[in-house]
């Protein structure tokens, strides 16, 4: 056999697939670093969906109308579903869901720090849908093109559902912005508190982002943090203006030449403090998650016992 017909090595096949914008699938050979990076990112993403249910669940019982309550319940249920798709995608790389949950419960893996901010008023349900989901959509639409097949497929499914989340949020903000002085003040206050954290969700500036270059080479990430942040700013500023609200940034200015909105400096000290666990709610979110898991144990035990009993019956009747 001559060299030209020798089978391609795992690395060669992997490189060719990534270069051709094709997808890497679970049973393919992949570099160890790629596997680790994909697991790390998908786990963080899955944990974020699951912990992200808490700030909104906080307002289900106090929704202003029955319809808003139904909508909020449906949205929180979607987040659970999104967590499920992402855990399933992560499991294709040989990590069990219980393993991932254990890492979350013990603080060894994290979730997006946006969920460590409190939801103080009903308007926050609007701001989260509009800004937090809006930011998530910008990122997730681009992630549909990620090189890991199961991750990409999970993103396609999630993106179909996210647009409902953003629109119901903006609809809450529209209702408030057209309401009484008090309601308009609530709307503005919520925008004031969520604007900067939403921008920080895109992560550190490219120059300070440890993984960006490698993840871009592997096509796990398709756009950098700063590119995605700018896309979000450009789409969101006019939406705030439509509401008649003010973006809490005195330096915000439209650049006629580039066609982009330029923002003032981001307070990265606050970002790192929240990431490292000094956020007001870090401890509370995990404690609540662990409590829910422990309190559900009897249900899981009962389901397992029922399944075992049912199986024994089937065996006997066979």
């Amino acid at each position, binding site marked *: 056999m001559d060299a030209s017909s020798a*089978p391609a090595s795992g690395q060669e096949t992997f490189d060719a697939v990534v270069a051709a914008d094709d997808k890497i*699938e679970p*049973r*393919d050979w992949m570099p160890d670093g790629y596997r*680790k990076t994909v697991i*790390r*990112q*998908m786990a*963080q*993403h899955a944990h*974020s969906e699951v912990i992200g249910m808490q700030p909104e669940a906080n307002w289900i019982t106090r929704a202003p109308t029955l319809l808003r309550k139904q909508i909020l319940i*449906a949205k929180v*249920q*979607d987040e659970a*579903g999104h967590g*499920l*798709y992402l855990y*399933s995608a992560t*499991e294709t790389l040989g*990590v*069990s*869901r*219980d*393993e991932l949950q*254990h*890492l979350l419960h*013990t603080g*060894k*893996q994290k979730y*997006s720090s*946006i969920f460590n901010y409190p939801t103080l008023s009903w308007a926050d349900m609007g701001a989260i849908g509009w800004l*937090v989901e809006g*930011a*998530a959509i910008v*990122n997730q639409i681009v*992630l549909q093109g990620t090189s890991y097949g199961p991750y990409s*497929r*999970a993103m396609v*499914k999630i993106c179909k559902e996210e647009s409902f989340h953003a629109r119901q949020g903006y609809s809450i903000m529209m209702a408030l912005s057209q309401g009484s002085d008090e309601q308009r003040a609530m709307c503005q206050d919520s925008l004031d508190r969520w604007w900067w954290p*939403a921008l920080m*969700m895109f*992560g*550190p500036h490219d120059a*300070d*982002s*440890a*993984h*960006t270059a490698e*993840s871009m080479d592997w096509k796990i*990430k398709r756009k950098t*943090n700063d590119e*995605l942040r700018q896309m979000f700013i450009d789409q969101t500023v006019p939406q705030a203006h439509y509401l008649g609200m003010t973006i809490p940034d005195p330096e915000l200015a439209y650049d006629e030449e580039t066609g982009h909105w330029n923002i003032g400096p981001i307070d990265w000290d606050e970002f*790192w403090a929240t*990431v*490292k666990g000094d956020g007001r709610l870090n401890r509370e979110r995990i404690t609540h998650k662990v409590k829910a898991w422990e309190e559900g144990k009897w249900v*899981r035990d009962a*389901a*397992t016992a029922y*399944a075992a009993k049912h*199986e024994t019956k089937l065996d006997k009747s066979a």
Partner: protein
Amino acid sequence: MSYDVPVAPGDKPQDVQFGGATDHGFPLWEVFVRAKRGLSHTHVGSIHAPDSETAIQNARDGYTRRAEGVSVWVVPSMEIVASDDAESMFEPFEDKPYRHPTFYEIPEEVGQL
């Protein structure tokens, strides 16, 4: 937003060790959904469940919240037998172009064929 785990300047990315979980959870099932009558069931993902009945219920809640389907199948993931996806498995197709209709040139006058 970025789902990258942020690493503070000067810090090293954390290398997570697996193997700490004590709970081994419910078995895994693959989910197939028929989008509408006339179409095949298509693989949409997987779910965990203790038995087939609960698996169907979880698959419905997880994958058909917006009328994505009219019928659901669940199959224990362990029961799926997969091919070895190496090139050799599918190679024979590459050098047999005569199996495709486009291999044959038919004069235009002949019409639809």
